[in-house]
């Protein structure tokens, strides 16, 4: 296992550098930030001074070398927009996103397992069809539509929830998490259902049933474990996309997360902050991928055996 982990971590370093390099170069394609941060009257001298101060006049190779040199010294540069340290800004925003992603996936996974198994227990029954229909609908609702409608119905109309923000304790989580969870819930429900239908028709489950095992017991003890593998893959992929920034939800609900920070730094041509956020999310995603693989290795005895080789 250790062997596998070390190898996995080592092979992740190069891709990480590639991501960072890609962001570095692409960001600089979006144009010179000088026009955003200098007054329109800026003289050529002032422009040159700005460019020099930020190192934009060096060759791209020099800039890359400087940046990576800085990264090794844990110096991620300074925000053009706010004047703060880029690392501070990224680290400040990250927990909010992680918590949102965690809560979302928890709800999506739990909901999907319950609804998916229930539907799979009687494939093609009315209940199954309704569950499938609803989950497919959920998977295709535009998120910002859901979010804004939710705000007006639950916050303004019913007065049950705060419209947005993070200050009202758990109740301020409801709408953002619901908005984020609806698509993963829909997708995962279908995955769990599909997996469960097959698992329930597998010989050993039928055997258990023939021995008189009841419905709930069959589902929870036998079938669900086999449905875990595909659900894990999909859940992992969904989590990755949440970590990479729930831009729309964070924008609408004023959630101070990494997605909002990323879009602000892109539109603000705030390269240092963009690079810091991407580095942070990319590392998280790589770690997440490794964790998922480890889970797989643990889940799948066969794979685990070979992993020792």
């Amino acid at each position: 296992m250790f062997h596998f982990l070390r190898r996995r971590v080592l092979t992740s370093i190069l891709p990480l550098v590639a991501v960072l390099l890609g962001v570095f170069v692409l960001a600089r394609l979006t144009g010179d930030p000088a026009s955003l941060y200098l007054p329109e009257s800026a003289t050529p001298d002032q422009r040159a001074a700005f460019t020099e101060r930020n190192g934009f006049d060096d060759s791209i190779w020099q800039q890359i070398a400087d940046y990576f040199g800085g990264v090794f010294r844990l110096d991620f540069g300074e925000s053009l927009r706010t004047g703060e340290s880029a690392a501070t800004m990224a680290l400040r925003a990250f927990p909010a996103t992680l918590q949102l992603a965690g809560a979302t996936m928890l709800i999506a996974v739990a909901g999907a397992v319950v609804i998916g198994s229930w539907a799979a227990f009687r494939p093609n029954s009315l209940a199954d069809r309704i569950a499938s229909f609803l989950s497919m609908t959920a998977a295709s609702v535009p998120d910002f539509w859901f979010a804004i409608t939710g705000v007006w119905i639950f916050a303004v109309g019913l007065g049950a929830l705060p419209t947005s923000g993070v200050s009202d304790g758990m109740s301020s989580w409801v709408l953002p998490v619901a908005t984020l969870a609806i698509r993963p819930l829909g997708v995962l429900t279908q995955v769990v259902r599909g997996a469960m239908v097959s698992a329930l028709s597998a010989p050993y489950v039928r055997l258990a049933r023939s021995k008189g095992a009841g419905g709930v017991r069959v589902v929870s003890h036998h079938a669900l474990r086999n449905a875990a593998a595909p659900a894990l893959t999909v859940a992992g992929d969904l989590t990755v996309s949440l970590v990479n920034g729930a831009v729309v939800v964070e924008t609408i609900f004023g959630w101070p997360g990494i997605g909002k920070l990323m879009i602000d730094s892109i539109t603000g041509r705030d390269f240092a902050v963009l690079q810091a956020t991407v580095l942070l999310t990319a590392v998280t995603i790589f770690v997440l991928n490794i964790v998922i693989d480890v889970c797989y290795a643990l889940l799948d005895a066969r794979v685990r055996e070979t992993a020792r080789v």
Partner: protein
Amino acid sequence: MSTLSDKAADGRPATGSDAPAGGAEPSAPARDSRVGLWRMLLRDRVATAAAAVLSLIVLTAVFGPLLVGSAATEQHLDNTNQPPFTFDDGWLGVLGTDPLGQSVLARLVVAARTTFSVAAPAVALALAIGALIGMWAGYHRGLRETLAMRVADIIMSFPSLLMAVVVLYVFSPSVANLVVVLAITRIPVYLRTARAESTELQSRLFVDAARTFGTSSSAIIRRHVFPIVLPTLLTLATLEFCYVMLAESSLSFLGIGIQPPDVSWGLMVSQGRSYLQTAWWLTFFPGLAIIVTTVSATVLAAWARLATDPAQRWRLTLPRRARHRTRTAPAPQEAQS
């Protein structure tokens, strides 16, 4: 590192990569009965309905714009935000008008074409590239596999938003560029699925046999791996179609999607969001169009998957009443539980 530990490294099964479960052999996906398929489809009411709806939508996308003509971009500033079922200006007002006095119905119809011409090529492109690299990586394993998987990781952890902004601001936000952006960001999904499946397949007996006979790798991939991987990928593609429509909508939310006067469902939803209080129909109908398309496509894909899988097809061939009784499996105990 051995090849075997590679399997552990990236040994994540594709989502539901189980096409050849039960040992169904690769070569022939139910060639016996084209007619049989039709009959099976007609027997499943829900699938039939889904097929009908989907055909209607596709026909609308193809021929609809001819019918409504230029009505989708004809502005009537004296006739804005009319609610649905306003027939003052003819039947085009049936779904109301937008803030520029354009017919929502006409726009929906024209948008269908744009939506498909973004989503379909984006999905197809991602599918083709992802599947090819994935199968190639999974078949050859070793360094090539690791390489492909890390590339997938790179794309996944790369902020797709930055890519969108760069491509759409630096180059213009044309339909072609939009397709490229959406395709690139979705490649990993197919790549990982295809790789997982072909990894499993390449160790199978029939592939081994082909290899011993000296068949070239590309031929093996084409003849033996591809047909088995395809159904999974196609099912995946139908769901991705929905995702791409929504992603395009989110890009519009950020102002970098389809540019007016072109119109897509995603753009319509996004444009209508500031009128949620005053004109619900602006977002409702395009949103509904996205949902209906997705649901029909998914239903049909699920059905097609059953229908083309020899191990599962029995579920569809049973007469409806009999099916009712033997729902989960042909196991007699079933009825009691």
